[in-house]
C-alpha cells in the first residue's frame, strides 16, 4: 500500500488540500497539513496541490494472500462507441484460463453511453460487466480511466487483469498496475494460469530474438497486455447472460487536470489487421512500380496488401501497411509473402495466420520455417503467372 507524505520544503500551508479531501482525512497542524486515519490514499490531494508538495510514497506488503484474489477481469476498450475486438479476444482467452480454476470472467467498460456495448458483451460468457458511464469519461484521460478500473478492482478483487495492447490500453495499464504496486507484462503472446493462480506470461524480448517467461509471484492482481489478433475471439452465443453492474464515482475522482481540446473521429480506416487475405511484398521487389503486382494479386483474391519495413523506409509504402514488431500484428486466414526473407521481427507478427504461403528464391530463407507452403521460385515468374490464371478464370 502507498502512503501520502507532505514535502516540508514546498508546502506553503495554503490548506487547499484540507478543503479538497473528499474523506476529511487532512487536518492543519502548526500550519502544515497532517493526514489522519481516514486517508484512503485516493491521491486527490497529490493531484490538486498547487505546489506539488504532496506526494505518494510506496510501502510494501511482504506477501499476498492469493486465495483472496479470484477471477479474471478484462478491460473492454470502447472506441468511438464500439467495442474494440481485442477485448472479445481477451475474454475468449480468459474463459480458457479460468475454467480449470473455477474462476469467473468479468469485464469492465469505461466511457459514455455504454449500454449497447454492455448489452453486446452479455453474449460472450462473462459473469459480470461493470460499467462506468459518465459524460466526464467521454474522452480518454489515463488518470481518471485508471480510477474507474481501480475502483472495480478493489471491489471485485480479480487475480488477473487483461488489457488490450492498444495505444489506449498501453497508456492506461501502467498507471493501474502502479497504483496496485504490482507487476505488468507488456505484449504477451502466450498466457497460462497455474494451479496457485500465478499467471505465466510469455512475451518476445529483444525484437523477438528471444522469448521471456515472466511471473508476478508476490503481488495481486497480475496485469498483462496482449496485442490485437494474438488470441482467438470467442463465438458469440445467442443467449445473453451476465450481470450488468452500473457503478459511479464521486465527481472529484472523475476530475482530472487534463482537458480535451479536440477529439476527431478518424474515418474507419481499413486496417491490414482486419484483412482475411493478405499479399505481402518484401525487398525482393526491385522497384516501386512492381508493387502494383502485389496489389493486383491482393485485389483478385479479394484481400489487402502489406509490406515489410524496408519498403516503408524507402517510402514505397506506409507504416499502417507494415507488418512486424514496429508495425502491425496480423492474423489473416491466408497470407502470401513475396520476396520476404522472414526476419524474426516480421514473422513474430504474422506466424499465427491460418495459411502461410511464401515465395522466395533463397532455399534457406527463414520465412520458409514458418510457411506452410514454401515456394522456392522467382516471384517475378510466379506472381504474374498466377495473376494471369486468376484473370482467365474470372473472365
Amino acid at each position, binding site marked *: 500500500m502507498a502512503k501520502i507524505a507532505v514535502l516540508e520544503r514546498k508546502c506553503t500551508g495554503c490548506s487547499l488540500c484540507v478543503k479538497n479531501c473528499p474523506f476529511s482525512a487532512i487536518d492543519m497542524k502548526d500550519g502544515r497539513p497532517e493526514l489522519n486515519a481516514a486517508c484512503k490514499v485516493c491521491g486527490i490531494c497529490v493531484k490538486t496541490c498547487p505546489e506539488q508538495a504532496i506526494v505518494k510514497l510506496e510501502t510494501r506488503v511482504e506477501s499476498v494472500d492469493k486465495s483472496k484474489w479470484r477471477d479474471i477481469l478484462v478491460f473492454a476498450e470502447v472506441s468511438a462507441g464500439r467495442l474494440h475486438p481485442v477485448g472479445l479476444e481477451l475474454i475468449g482467452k480468459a474463459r480458457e484460463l479460468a475454467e480449470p480454476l473455477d474462476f469467473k470472467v468479468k469485464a469492465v467498460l469505461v466511457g459514455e453511453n455504454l449500454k449497447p456495448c454492455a448489452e453486446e458483451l452479455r453474449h460472450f460468457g462473462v459473469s459480470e460487466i461493470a460499467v462506468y458511464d459518465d459524460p466526464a469519461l467521454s474522452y480518454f*484521460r489515463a488518470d481518471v480511466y485508471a480510477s474507474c478500473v481501480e475502483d472495480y478492482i478493489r471491489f471485485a478483487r480479480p487475480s488477473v487483469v487483461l488489457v488490450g495492447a492498444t495505444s489506449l490500453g498501453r497508456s492506461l495499464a501502467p498507471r493501474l498496475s502502479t497504483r496496485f504496486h504490482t507487476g505488468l507484462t507488456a505484449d504477451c503472446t502466450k498466457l497460462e494460469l497455474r494451479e496457485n493462480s500465478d499467471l505465466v506470461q510469455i512475451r518476445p524480448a529483444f525484437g523477438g530474438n528471444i522469448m521471456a517467461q515472466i511471473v508476478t509471484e508476490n503481488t495481486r492482481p497480475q496485469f498483462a497486455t496482449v496485442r490485437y489478433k494474438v488470441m482467438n475471439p470467442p463465438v458469440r452465443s445467442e443467449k445473453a447472460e451476465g450481470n450488468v453492474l452500473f457503478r459511479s464515482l464521486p465527481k472529484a475522482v472523475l476530475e482530472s487536470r487534463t482537458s480535451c481540446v479536440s477529439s476527431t473521429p478518424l474515418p474507419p480506416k481499413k486496417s491490414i489487421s482486419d484483412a482475411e487475405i493478405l499479399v505481402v511484398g518484401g525487398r525482393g521487389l526491385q522497384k516501386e512500380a512492381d508493387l502494383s503486382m502485389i496489389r493486383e494479386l491482393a485485389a483478385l483474391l479479394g484481400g489487402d496488401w502489406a509490406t515489410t519495413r524496408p519498403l516503408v523506409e524507402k517510402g514505397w509504402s506506409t507504416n499502417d501497411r507494415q507488418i512486424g514488431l514496429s508495425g502491425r500484428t496480423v492474423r489473416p486466414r491466408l497470407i502470401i509473402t513475396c520476396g520476404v526473407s522472414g526476419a524474426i521481427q516480421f514473422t513474430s507478427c504474422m506466424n499465427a495466420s491460418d495459411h502461410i504461403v511464401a515465395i522466395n528464391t533463397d532455399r534457406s530463407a527463414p520465412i520458409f520455417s514458418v510457411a506452410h507452403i514454401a515456394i522456392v521460385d522467382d516471384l517475378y515468374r510466379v506472381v504474374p503467372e498466377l495473376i494471369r490464371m486468376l484473370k482467365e478464370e474470372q473472365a
Partner: protein
Amino acid sequence: MNIFVCIKQVPATNKVQVDEKTGVLKRSGVAGKMNPYDLYALETALRLREKHGGTVTVGTMGPPQAQAIIREAYMMGADEGYVFSDRRLGGADVLATGYTLSQAIRSVGDFDLILCGKQTTDGDTAQVGPAIAEYLGIPHAAWVSRLEVRGDGVDAEQQLQDVVETVHMPFPCLVTVEQDIYMPRLPSLKKAREIGDKPVHVQGLESFLDQDESHYGLTGSATQVERIFPPQDDTEHEVWEDGNSAEKLKAVLKRWKFI
C-alpha cells in the same frame, strides 16, 4: 520552462546475453547506444527550449558507462545530465524503474515537463513513462505526435484507435512522444568542443527522498523472469522447388476455398 528528458542506454545489437540464474541482462561488455526513440524526446525538448527558453536536463538510470549517452545528449544541446547509478537499482522491472525515475527526477529539481521516448528497444514495454507519471501524481499523454505550449501547459495530440485526441495538460505533466514528432538532430562536433569535459552528475540512492532500498532494483520489482528461451518452430511445411508453382498454387488456393 524546465524540461527533464528520460533517456536510456540500450545494447547496440539485439544479440544479448542473459544471466541464467536471475534472468537479468548482462549489460557489461556490450556496446551501448542511446535508445533511438529517446532521440525524438530529446529533440522535442530542444525545440521547445529554442522557442520558449528554459533548460533541458537529461537523466538515465543505468550503469556508470551510461554516461556515454549523457555526453551524446550534451552534444545535441542538453544543459545538464544525470546518471542514476547504484548497485541497488539493478534488475528493475517497470514498477521499480518507474518508481526509481520518479524519485530521481524529484531529487534533481522541479520540472514543468517530463518527456520520454515511446518505448525502448530492449525493455520494449512503452510502460515506464506512464508509470513515472503515476508515481509523480501528474497527468500524462502517450504516443504524442504533436506538442505545443499553450498558456500554463501543453496541448498534446495523441492518436488512439479511431480518434485523434488533443488534450491540454497544465504543468507539470509527462508526455511520451512518437517518432514522427520531429527529426532528431545529429550530435555536433562544434558542441563537443564547446562542452569539453563538462561533467556528468552521477548519483545513487542516497540522493533520493525514499531511501528504503527494498523499493528499488530487483527486490522492488513485482515481476520475475523465470526463463528465457529461443522462439520455437513447429510448423509442418511443404517445399516446392521444381517450378510450375503458379499452377500448383492456384490449385491449393482452390482447395482451401480462397478462389
